[in-house]
Each structure stands twice: as C-alpha cells, then as structure tokens.
C-alpha cells in the first residue's frame, strides 16, 4: 500500500509542479529515502524540505481526475484525496519516503514535525493518516490534533478518512463527533458514522440537543442520525418528538424520519 500510494502521490504532484519544483522534489525524495532513521542531520533536512514545499512546488488544490480518485480507493479503501492540496500531498509523500523501521521512529518523527507545523502543515500531516506505516502509534498525536482551535485541522482528521473508524476508541470517537457539531462542522463526511454509533454517543448528543434548545439555539439536523437508533434506550423519544414538531422543516424531516422508522 505504501509504495503504491507513494507512486500515485509522486505522479500527481510532479505533473502539477513546475519543472524546477519537480527536480527539487525528486532530489529530496532521493536524499530522504536514503537517510538513516534517527540521524539528526537527515531529520533536519526533512524538516526544512517539509517547510520549503510551497516555495518549490507552488500551492493550490491537488488536481485529480476520476481515474486518480478510483486509483486512490483501490490502493487504500477509504482514501479520499479530493480535498488535498498540492503542497500537502508533496509533504505527505516526503514523510512516507522516510525509512521508519519501528513505530517509535515514525511516531517521534511525526511528533517533531507536528509540533513545529503551521496550520497548513498540520492539515497535511493529519490528512496523510490513512497512508502511514505504524498508524496506530499515532492515536495520541491525533487526539492532540482534535483539540485544535482551527477547523481545517480538525476536519483533516475527522473528514474523508478511514483512520478514525479504524483506530479511535469509543471515547475519542464520541468526542470527535460531538466536537464536529460543536464547531459547526458536518458529520456526513465522517466515515463509519453509522457503524460506530453507540448508546453513549447518543446520550451525549441528547444532552447537547437539550442544552442547545434551552439556549434557544439551532440544533444540527445531522445530530438525529447518531441519536435515532438509541432513542428508546436512552430515553430520548420525547426529544425526537419535540424536534419532529419543529418550525424548521429540515429538523422536522430529520427527526420525523426516525419517529416513523422506530414506530414511536
């Protein structure tokens, strides 16, 4: 998976970059591919190259065809690079190219880069999660990323990625979903939302909905999707019924659908 993903990323970034940028990238990939893990000079070269990417390659959305997107899915189910940037893709490629024999080596390198990263670099680091070797070693780093104040960083983890459903325990998962609502992000791009629904999350969302209602604030219509299956179990049928009588037609539709389906 790693080699095939690198090949795709190399193709996509090289064809979009100017000739000088392409040469620069290939030279860095060669240099970084030959580094000895833990060598401070090599780690420094990686960190500098990581920062220099936009100066050398330019910046902007990664231009992808339908074939590219299908190729990504074939290499790594759930990998959705549609929201990636050119510079982000190149940064992920640099990181994938580093030899990393053990989970500890990879974790240490990721942490060093993440701690010095600007927001765009943080987005790239977290978007690459589905592709990394030893990905499970990064769960605490991901937890740190979810605490961000910067919405694109949060979404780089939560959206269009198989990583959360595959690696997060229930507590982290539940708080990610809650925070997505809390910061006015969306739930639909979270992979595995229905498969990982659970009563504790439904209870958290019930309380959150009540808090919003008490404050006279709008409740996201997406909330009911995670609450509906457990409404009876957690004592939230009245909450659903209330929403199904809402003045807001979207809220009425979202909650009403669950009332119908569960025969409340």
């Amino acid at each position, binding site marked *: 998976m790693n080699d095939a993903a690198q090949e795709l990323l190399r193709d996509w970034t090289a064809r979009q970059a100017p000739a000088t940028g392409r040469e620069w990238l290939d030279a860095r990939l060669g240099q970084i591919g030959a580094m000895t893990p833990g060598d401070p000079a090599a780690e420094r070269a990686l960190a500098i190259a990581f920062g220099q990417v936009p100066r050398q390659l330019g910046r902007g959305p990664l231009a992808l065809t339908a074939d590219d997107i299908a190729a990504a899915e074939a290499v790594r189910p759930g990998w959705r690079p549609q929201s990636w940037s050119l510079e982000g893709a190149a940064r992920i490629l640099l990181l994938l190219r580093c030899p990393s024999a053990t989970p500890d080596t990879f974790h240490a390198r990721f942490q060093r880069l993440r701690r*010095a990263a600007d927001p765009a670099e943080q987005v790239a680091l977290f978007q690459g999660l589905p592709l990394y070797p030893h990905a499970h070693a990064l769960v605490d780093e991901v937890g740190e990323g979810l605490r961000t104040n910067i919405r694109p960083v949060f979404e780089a983890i939560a959206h269009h990625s198989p990583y959360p459903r595959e690696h997060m325990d229930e507590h982290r998962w539940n708080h990610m979903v809650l925070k997505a609502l809390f910061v006015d992000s969306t739930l639909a791009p979270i992979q595995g939302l229905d498969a990982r629904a659970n009563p504790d999350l439904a209870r958290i969302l019930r309380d959150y909905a009540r808090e919003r209602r008490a404050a006279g604030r709008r409740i996201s219509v997406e909330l009911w999707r995670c609450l509906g299956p457990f409404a009876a179990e957690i004592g939230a049928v009245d909450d659903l019924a209330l929403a199904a009588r809402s003045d807001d037609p979207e809220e009425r539709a979202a909650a009403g659908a669950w009332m119908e389906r569960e025969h409340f």
Partner: protein
Amino acid sequence: MQYIDPHAHMISRTTDDYQAMAAAGVVAVIEPAFWLGQPRTHVASYADYLSAILGFERFRASQFGVHHYCTIGLNSKEANDEALAEAVMEILPLFAQKDGVVAIGEIGYDEQTALEDRYFRLQLDLARELSLPVMIHTPHRDKKQGTLRSMAVCLEHGLSPAQVVVDHNNEETVRDVLDQGFWAAFSIYPSTKMGDARMVEILKRYGADRIIVNSACDWGISDPLAVPKTARLALEQGVPAEQVSLACYANALTAFAPSGQISETDWAGPAVIDQRTSFAGNSILRGGREAVVTGLDSAF
C-alpha cells in the same frame, strides 16, 4: 489609504485591536520574533512561541481581515543565555522557511555583549544562506553606537543594505542609516521610542525614501493604531500623500517582498473574512454570537 504595520507583536494584543486596525485601513502586519517581557528558560517554550506566531496568530489575524506575516530569530536579550541561545540556533532553520516568514529578525544588540555579537553574526549568515531580508533591533541604550555597529557587521557578513531594515531609529541615528543605504524604520511607541509629531518632522526633513513607520505595539503601553494615526497627522501637516503612503505602506512591502512571502496580491480584491471556517471552537464564537462572514463568493 491602506497601511502596513511592519512591526507589531500581535500575540500580546486583543481581538478589539485587530478590529480597530482593520477598520483604520491596516491590511497587513509583520510580527517579529522577540522576547516576551521576561526571558524564556527552555528552548521548548521558544519553539512553541515561534510556531504560535506563524501559526495560530496568523490564523487569528485572518479572522479580522488582517494579513499576518512574521520574522524568525533569536533576540539580543535572550542571546545572553548561552545554553538557550545554542538550542534556539538549532531550531531556527526549521522555522525560517515556513509560509509567511518575511525576514530573519528582530536581531541585533541589547547591551552589545560578546554573546549578542556571536548570535547576531550567526543569524546574519543564516539570512544570507536562505536569501531572507533582516530586521535589526537597535538597542535602547547606547543606541547610536549600537546602530553603527549593527550596520558595519551586516556589511562585514556580505549583506546588502537593501536587504536590511534597521529599526527603532530616532533623530540621532536616521542620517547615518539613510546615508549607508539601509532601510530606516521608526517605532511610534509612546515614551520610550518615537512620537508621532517627531515622526512627521522627520518625514518633512528627510522625505520618505527608505523610511518605514511602525507601531512596535506589544505588551507594554503602546498603540496598535500608531501607523494610521501618524499618517493622518502627516497628511494634516502637509506631507504629500504619496510620501505618507511610502512610509506607512509601500516601503515595507518593497523591503520584505524579496522573501517571496508578502505581496500586494495577498490583499487585492475584496476582503474575505470567514469566522465560521477558521476560528471555530474559539470562545469568541461561543455564547450565541453570530460569526462574521463577509466577502465570500462561495460557501465553504
């Protein structure tokens, strides 16, 4: 008129300041790396500071329509802690090439010690290696001597005067700085540096070629609106508008543009502010306050 405040420690300022600056026409600020009013004792807190000024602070500024850039460097005060200084020199290259870094700075002398001299020179070499402009902090005490020495050391290390902004000038230093071809910046900072009336006199006397006005606003008694206020006073007192625009906008752009990280196109077109997108989760958006969204042509 549009303004740039090319020396503002925004990490110490409030969101009210950003709003007032944007309303007064400040389109861009440059945040030089400096000390925090007290010395850091560990390199880790220095690293976090550098990542804050090129990360979250830049983000925060964008929420108010202000474009934020920074300079990266080891300041002269903390250069005197040798263990810290050595460790900071190790990490500077990791930050100096990040997006929005327009110079190495603010560096130079405080008490003109041997350690200050050592790290000043090492950073001038770094600026030359990375082809970055330099922002010089001239000392508060023994200023004239410190300014002359700063320029001489820059030349000794092969920097061109056009690559170097010499900051915190006053009536006693400006002539030498301009004569040697360096940029001469002035911090309109009540009580310790320049006042706006004195600044207007300097503009009248020397014109605006290679003169740059900034606020140096920070955690002390200082004014984030010093640039637009000085501009207004200068206009009232008959300084031609094109000269005011050079000193309060265009010269800073010309001086720092060689970094490749700041350009007028950054703020060309209608201002885009989208507090929904970028600042979500921060307390300013809690409490039922509606997010400000202006100038967006498509939904995020």
